[in-house]
């Protein structure tokens, strides 16, 4: 499908272990796609393969019809693929606003020397990115703490900050790596609302999660993995009621 971010029959080994065994997944723009599976099922590995932190052994990654399998993390970020991490990777010595503004690097065209002489273009880009980041921070609920250093934020706020950074980059796709980890019920609801707004805005969201109720509540489609293979994929309701999924999660 055009415009989608896909993994096609991807295989990845670690030593003798087959972590991801012929997995295909299609993330469409304007959908929330859940990726679930028990520990060791290969979810995070697949996420790392799609975002470029691991290279595939076989298979391909395709973005809007273009093969990006060989592309670096940076190239994929430039193409509009943003992600968050299981443990937030923030620049702890910078304030919240600056962390969010980092997401705007993708749209910076000014060079080093141009910036050094404070030419009009860098000033304009700075103002634009700042305005966008401020709006997004307010949007996700961090408007009160914009000047606080990132290392003074508690865990939940750091997670939301990572999402804000991702959004500042005007992404086409956002890959969320277990964003609900450590969040309270209310916070999870906020997260769900934010993800919904992202989807409504046309962003394709991949949600890798352990909290299966959260996934089934929020997602349009779900792919379920076990031991590196896809058990089933389809609409959230269909996957939730799939006997194999039930067996893997509730069975022996």
């Amino acid at each position, binding site marked *: 499908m055009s415009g989608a971010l896909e993994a096609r029959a991807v295989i990845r080994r670690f030593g003798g272990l087959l972590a991801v065994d012929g997995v295909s997944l299609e993330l469409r723009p304007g959908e929330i796609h859940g990726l679930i599976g028990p520990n060791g099922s290969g979810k995070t590995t697949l996420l790392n393969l799609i975002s470029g932190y691991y290279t595939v052994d076989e298979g391909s990654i395709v973005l809007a019809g273009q093969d990006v399998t060989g592309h670096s993390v940076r190239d994929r970020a430039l193409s509009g693929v943003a992600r968050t991490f299981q443990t937030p990777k923030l620049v702890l010595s910078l304030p919240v606003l600056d962390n969010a503004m980092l997401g705007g690097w993708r749209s910076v065209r000014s060079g080093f020397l141009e910036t050094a002489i404070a030419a009009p273009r860098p*000033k304009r880009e700075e103002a634009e990115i700042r305005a966008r980041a401020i709006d997004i921070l307010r*949007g996700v609920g961090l408007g009160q703490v914009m000047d606080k250093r990132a290392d003074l934020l508690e865990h939940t706020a750091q997670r939301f900050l990572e999402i804000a950074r991702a959004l500042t980059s005007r992404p086409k796709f956002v890959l969320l790596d277990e964003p609900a980890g450590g969040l309270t019920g209310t916070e999870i609801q906020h997260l769900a609302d934010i993800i919904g707004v992202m989807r409504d805005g046309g962003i394709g969201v991949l949600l890798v999660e352990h909290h299966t109720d959260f996934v089934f509540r929020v997602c349009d489609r779900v792919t379920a993995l076990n031991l590196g293979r896809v058990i089933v994929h389809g609409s959230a309701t269909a996957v939730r009621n799939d006997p194999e999924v039930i067996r893997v999660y509730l069975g022996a």
Partner: protein
Amino acid sequence: MKHNRIRPALVGLFALLAALLPWLTGNIYYLHVATVIGVYWVLIATLNLLVGFTGQLSVGHVGLLAIGAYAFCLLAGGQGWHPFLALLSGGAICAVIGLLLGLPSLRLPGFYFAMATLAFGLIVSELALAEQWLTNGSVGMPAPSFPAPFDTPRGFYWLVLGIAGLVTWMTSNVARFMWGRAMVALRDSTVAASSVAVPIYRTKLIVFVFSGFTAGIAGGLYATSQTYITPDAFIVNLGIYFFVAIIIGGRGVIIGPFIGAAVLAAIPELVGPLAKYGTFFYGLILLIVVLVLPGGFGELITTLAAKLRRDAPSATSIEPDLPSLRDVIRGQT
């Protein structure tokens, strides 16, 4: 990166005092010390971008200072070039050498890179001594002076002040716009940096080459300030001094390293007979700062300021504003 009305006012005041220094003190010696601090600062300001912002620990940058100094003396003295042309050429030569040095070594992890630059610094001082046909070996060579009005101590001081001011302006511009954030991200979290598409290797290289250029210029100015250069002016200990000034001044800050540089330069001049203990104390200060206050005094000040503003790590209540979030996202894709 923070807006502040106090800061520009302080900077303006300082610039005024600096410009008036030759009249505030009649002492030629103090003027000379101030000039040397200014020259060092031309190098340290951009080295700060490399070490403090981008986190590349270049211990041997003094090698570029040496090359700049010798290039200047050879071109303006021996070859009879106009001093300003020679100065810029020295800068250009060092930029190229910085490129050649940086291309292989910036791919390496921190310790390897530090070692590579240390080796570079040692090689330059080794070659300065050995290549007598070029450098006169241990005899050294005289440094030409600049044309009037910069040939008096006062005039030269203002030249250095002007160049230092220009370099400071440029580095603080880079620091407060997106490039500055990208550099700090690179230093603290390469994962974060690459996830927002910061070109890690290219950024390091650009900063390294830029710092090479200004080091070369600083070299030429240094030569004139000393009127005569010999290889033992450029020992590795000087490189460590640059380094320490930045670290104790605070990484990621502009003002801090300047204060660090000024203090560390002034101390040996003022304590006279204790000067030979200088390098030992630099090491001691560096050790203490690293153990107790890794962010340097710059961080101490910002932490204190944050404490005064009661910026405690309190719990934030997160209340998303969904409608405006919707607007922002819709407005962009």
